[in-house]
């Protein structure tokens, strides 16, 4: 016979006002197996907990119920107290008689709260009788991290983890780290030059002994679980031996072929063997294979001839490397909404209609024009520029419903950069409203308007078209209630920030969630902003949604601190609510394997002494299992069960209903 104790809490008057706690305790005493009951003012107070511990010892209890507030409040408290008194903590169960009884059934004339409390407590007692002691699961932790994406958020995360003394593998799909920030000219609100603040961080990441940079690489496959991930990474062939390359650049100099530069967003050309930009890290060129005549049809080979250390290998192939890590930080960033979507603004048709990032390149001293604002069509300095905000943003029909958050700020920055470079130039900004929340942001926008003469027009642009060699911008100025038409020499569109192409494929490899715009989901938008629902995988930066550099950096650091705290212990303890397979009855139908949302169930075999397979069966990987119980309901032969929520426990509760 079990020896169960029932502790009914009055919660001051919170429960006792509408539930007769004494009566509940008395009624429970009548049930078989219940040897001790009481009611008490505040069970969760320290005297309450002491009383509970004493009662466990005095009455040699082997299980207990606390009928009190929601288990979401104090289940941990009471389980800890039970453990301190020598009991298995999972032999302690909570009945929720506050949120489910006293607080929602106020009518005392019919004693409904008391009756319901009695029912619920009885159900929990019957369930408890079927409980088995459970042990927290200990998982060893591999203290190395993987960071995916080498933009500012990923670099920051990698640096912080490395500073904390742990190894980091930083995977970047482009030939250089740096991400979008490497493209920016100067940065709001302080106007530091982007390269000047970014390059030192990139170099630090390259030189830090704890960081292994894998550029031109992508994650192929992720297996395992928190503390124990196995990751396969494809190292795309650079056709250049990274170890031997000195970065002299002779090869780039001599390469006779050119193609469009993706980094410069079509504003200039680059060689077929190239580094994306002069400050690239690592400073190792790659050959753009589809455009290389040597690789395609064995013609040329100039680079190999001039390369001193002989590091060019036209036969080099992709390599797959496998790394074992304990945690993953995803920082894959953003891109701009493809411009083709904005036909009415003439993008693609009219050469002098560009997007904000292209303007950054024009304004950048290492950009295609050496930092002079020259329009793409004829290289002329435009005497006026029209900036159009919210292109694709805040417009569910044509683009996305959200605000891209940084466009108001960078457009103000662009008007300033333009004015500083073209003193007699006039800028116009079409906007819906100005969002300049952030430290010194509002002052920054005011400065653009008051100091640098940017003309802000509140309204939408309806059409941009070419007439007699001029670009005509037609729009409304809703403040003066008039139609405006501007003969523009250049137009800059602040196009929406969207998720990276392929963001969903990567999310599926990692088993993390994303929203309808394919931005990654945080575990909790307020309280757990850099975690994902998959334990051990963290997020940083614009892969979650639009944000600026300070926020991306803060998140990189936040994700790193989560990783470091995970790495601070050799083992981690997990709740033992996991599934387990009955080896004798499992008939290897694999229904559970397909049902499990976490791929936690593997196909396993039983072998005889000679090593012959005698039976196939399912096996649950406890490190991966999250305890949802989907498999249990899927198994038709009832061969898999969920610890803490077994069929026996649930049926016991239903049967005593």
């Amino acid at each position, binding site marked *: 016979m079990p020896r169960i104790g029932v502790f009914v809490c009055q919660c001051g008057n919170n429960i006792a006002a509408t539930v007769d706690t004494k009566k509940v305790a008395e009624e429970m005493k009548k049930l078989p197996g219940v040897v001790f009951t009481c009611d008490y003012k505040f069970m969760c107070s320290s005297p309450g907990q002491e009383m509970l511990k004493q009662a466990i010892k005095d009455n040699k209890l082997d299980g207990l119920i606390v009928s009190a507030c929601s288990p979401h409040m104090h289940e941990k408290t009471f389980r800890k107290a039970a453990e301190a008194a020598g009991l298995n903590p999972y032999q302690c169960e909570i009945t*929720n008689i506050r949120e489910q009884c006293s607080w929602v059934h106020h009518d005392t004339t019919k004693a409904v709260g008391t009756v319901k409390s009695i029912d619920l407590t009885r159900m929990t007692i019957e369930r408890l009788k079927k409980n088995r002691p459970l042990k927290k699961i200990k998982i060893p932790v591999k203290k190395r991290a993987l960071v995916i994406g080498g933009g500012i958020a990923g670099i920051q995360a990698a640096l912080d983890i490395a500073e904390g003394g742990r190894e980091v593998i930083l995977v970047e799909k482009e030939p250089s780290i740096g991400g979008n920030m490497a493209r920016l000219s100067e940065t709001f609100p302080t106007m530091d030059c982007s390269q000047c603040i970014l390059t030192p961080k990139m170099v630090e990441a390259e030189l830090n002994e704890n960081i292994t940079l894998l550029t031109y690489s992508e994650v192929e496959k992720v297996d395992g679980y928190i503390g124990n991930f196995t990751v396969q990474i494809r190292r795309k062939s650079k056709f250049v031996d990274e170890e031997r390359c000195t970065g002299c650049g002779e090869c780039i100099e001599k390469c006779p072929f050119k193609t469009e530069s993706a980094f410069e967003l079509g504003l200039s050309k680059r060689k077929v063997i190239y580094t994306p930009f002069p400050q690239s890290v690592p400073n190792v060129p790659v050959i753009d294979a589809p455009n290389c005549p040597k690789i395609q049809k064995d013609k040329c080979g100039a680079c190999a001839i001039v390369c001193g250390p002989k590091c060019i290998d036209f036969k080099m192939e992709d390599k797959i490397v496998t790394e074992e890590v304990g945690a993953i930080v995803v920082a894959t960033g953003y891109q701009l909404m493809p411009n083709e979507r904005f036909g009415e603004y003439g993008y693609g048709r009219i050469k002098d209609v560009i997007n904000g990032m292209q303007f950054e390149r024009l304004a950048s001293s290492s950009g295609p024009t050496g930092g002079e604002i020259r329009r793409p069509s004829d290289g002329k300095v435009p005497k006026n520029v029209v900036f159009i905000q919210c292109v694709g943003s805040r417009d569910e029909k044509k683009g996305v419903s959200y605000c891209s958050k940084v466009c108001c700020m960078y457009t103000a920055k662009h008007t300033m950069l333009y004015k500083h470079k073209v003193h007699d130039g006039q800028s116009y900004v079409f906007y819906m409203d100005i969002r300049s929340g952030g430290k010194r942001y509002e002052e920054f926008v005011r400065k653009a308007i008051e100091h640098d003469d940017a003309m802000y027009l509140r309204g939408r642009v309806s059409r941009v078209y070419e007439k007699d060699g001029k670009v005509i911008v037609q729009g409304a100025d809703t403040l003066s209630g008039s139609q405006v038409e501007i003969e523009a020499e250049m137009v800059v569109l602040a196009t929406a920030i969207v998720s990276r192409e392929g963001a969903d494929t990567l999310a599926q490899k990692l088993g993390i969630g994303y929203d309808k715009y394919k931005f990654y989901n945080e575990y909790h938008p307020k309280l757990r902003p850099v975690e994902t629902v998959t334990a051990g995988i963290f997020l940083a930066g614009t892969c979650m949604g639009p944000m600026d550099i300070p926020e991306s950096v803060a998140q990189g650091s936040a994700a790193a601190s989560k990783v470091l705290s995970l790495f601070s212990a050799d083992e981690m303890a997990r709740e033992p609510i996991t599934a387990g397979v009955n080896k004798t009855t499992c008939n290897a139908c694999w229904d559970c394997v397909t049902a499990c949302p976490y791929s936690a169930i593997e196909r396993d075999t039983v072998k005889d002494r000679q090593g012959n397979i005698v039976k196939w069966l399912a096996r649950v990987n406890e490190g991966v299992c999250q305890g949802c119980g989907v498999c249990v309901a899927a198994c038709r032969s009832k061969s898999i069960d969920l610890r803490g929520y077994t069929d026996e426990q649930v049926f016991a509760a239903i049967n005593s209903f």
Partner: protein
Amino acid sequence: MTEHNAHTESTGGFEPKIMAFVCNWCTYAGADLAGTSRMEYRPNVRIIKLPCTGRIDPLFIIKAFENGADGVLVSGCHPGDCHYTTGNYHARRRWIGFKHLLEFTGIDMRRLHFSWVSASEAIKWVDLINKITDEVKALGPFMEYKGLKEKAAE
């Protein structure tokens, strides 16, 4: 069980018993919020908490009817919000198959409800419980399955 029935009968009129199978993360938390917000609702429901609606075996529902439930509710996170990403899709798929089966055996579908109640939808929870209770009350006690259990016991 008998005790509870005796009580309801003594207070006059038929008081249905509703069993609710809810997930820990959304609906259970939604019901908690109804509590912390001190909302009043019908006392006829008894909650059984499971990690996810995906854990819910159709047999639970049959057992609940056998043990005296006059109505059953299954509720979890909204589609797309399941704590375990897809558990509720499994639940919904199972539910659809199961519903047809029960309908076929002649159970009035007004006794059986499937809903999504999030952790912030205390009002939805309250309305749902009130609605189900009133509806099942109007239908009267559900005897067919209770009979089954007693027969099996004989």
